[in-house]
């Protein structure tokens, strides 16, 4: 028993060190004065200053944020509809195909999703003249398509774990089905919708491969900019950028954690 516990404990320690040491080191090196990012040259915050003066990064970040907000919002609407359909309408035509199409984008390799969407946009452009150029719109559509799956799954499982008696009672009392959805079902699944929106937002900000396929000339998202830079090796202003993201995410997750703990207790 003792030996087993020690083994598990050391695996846990190793695993968490493995997950976090690289992130900690990026944070440390972001305050490194030296231009050679892996040699320590004294404490400095100069890379943060350079980051904020870099117009290309700011433009890319702004484009990424706009795409993330737009695609997360559309994905939440479509994903909630899909979740409702799958959890509440037991039978409709083409249900098997529908549930297959909902979950497949989640596991599809990114190179395939990216390639197939780009070929679709090219074909559409030839046939109907839309989309006339690739960029914000096409990336938003691509991100919506794979992130709505996550929203659908979260909403669906929330609906499945919820009992239907409230909705049935309202139905018995003669409520209009659409009103029941807006007055009862949606408020009940709101937490799932928020979780889904946040996940879709992060997935969109995170994506490099699909955006690289479906974007056009001149529209670089933040990951595309970072990738073009780190291809050439370690770079100190990217360390600063990574640190800002790590700190922002940690604070956000910490707040969410404290909030849910308070709700529970």
């Amino acid at each position, binding site marked *: 028993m003792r030996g087993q516990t020690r083994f598990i404990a050391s*695996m*846990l320690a190793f695993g968490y060190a493995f997950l976090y040491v690289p992130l900690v080191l990026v944070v440390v090196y972001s305050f490194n004065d030296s231009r050679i990012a892996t040699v320590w040259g004294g404490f400095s915050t100069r890379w943060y200053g350079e980051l904020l003066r870099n117009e290309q990064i700011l433009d890319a970040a702004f484009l990424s944020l706009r795409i993330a907000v737009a695609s997360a919002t559309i994905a939440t609407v479509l994903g909630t*509809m899909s979740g409702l359909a799958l959890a509440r309408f037991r039978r409709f035509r083409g249900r098997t195909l529908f549930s297959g199409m909902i979950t497949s984008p989640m*596991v599809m390799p990114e190179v*395939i999703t990216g390639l197939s969407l780009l070929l679709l946009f090219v074909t559409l452009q030839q046939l109907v003249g839309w989309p006339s150029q690739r960029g914000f719109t096409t990336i938003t559509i691509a991100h919506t398509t794979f992130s*709505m799956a996550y929203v659908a799954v979260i909403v669906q499982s929330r609906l499945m774990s919820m009992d239907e008696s409230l909705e049935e009672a309202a139905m018995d009392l003669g409520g209009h089905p659409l009103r029941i959805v807006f007055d009862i079902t949606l408020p009940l699944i709101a937490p799932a919708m928020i979780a889904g929106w946040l996940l879709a937002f992060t997935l969109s900000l995170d994506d490099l491969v699909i955006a690289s396929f479906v974007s056009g000339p001149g529209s670089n998202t933040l990951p595309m900019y970072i990738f073009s830079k780190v291809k050439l090796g370690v770079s100190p202003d*990217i360390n600063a950028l990574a640190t800002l993201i790590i700190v922002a995410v940690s604070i956000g997750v910490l707040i969410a954690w404290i909030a849910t703990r308070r709700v529970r207790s």
Partner: protein
Amino acid sequence: MWKKVVTATPYLWLLLFFLAPFAIVLKISLADPEFGLPPYSQTASLENFAFLFSDKLYAVTYLRSVFMAVCATVLCLALGFPMAYGIARSNRETRNLLLLLVILPFWISFLLRVYAWMGLMNNYGTINTLLMWLGVTDQPIQLMYTDFAVFVGLVYSYLPFMILPLYATLERMDLDLVEAALDLGASRSRAFWDVTWPLARPGVIAGCLLVFIPAIGEYVIPYLLGGPESLLIGRVLFDEFFVNRDWPLASAVAIVLLLLLVVPIVLLQRYQARDQESTV
């Protein structure tokens, strides 16, 4: 009426932006490359597929991708299983914190997490500096741009995908069964292999598929951490398309990759559907 709208809207979206694209990929994979825009012909033949199967380079690349993905999956399992087990067995307070720490990296950019390893594994990076300081080696060991670096990147990025489903099944498991086996005189390892392992199998399968499927088409990790000779299928597809501008061949590469993944993807979906039913 409104029910129809609720179902039809996402349905049409997926038909247009998920299913139709595959039909187009299939069509283009049968065409020939041509100069012009779009750079493919309107003819149809199986030539691209014949080429894929006759050129050894592609077969080797597919096999290498499968091999790398399998190794990454096994490594994730070897590290993830004890971790998930430890998390599931800790008390409630610690468990929530430990789970949070597994999920947290998910929210931090994938690209930046891979990038973090570039600084660590560089010839003058943290690991080599440490090793030379300790006197283990007097010359930097080549870590970056090797298969080793790709494995580290894959395990690092996909470990949470392994831990979470494993944790879910291990947490639901009835500990009394292990106790009973031990009371009946089974050894620790016997109890593990005969009781814990079979009960954890759904989580093991889901975790392995969740790592294997995305790892096989991975582009960023081999590009940033792997050597130029470490060709993997995601990279080949990308280069055929963007560098060689051979759209038909890139489409054929995608179709073959998809065929390779049909079985694991269907398996995963079936498992997840069953899992969802059993939790309700």
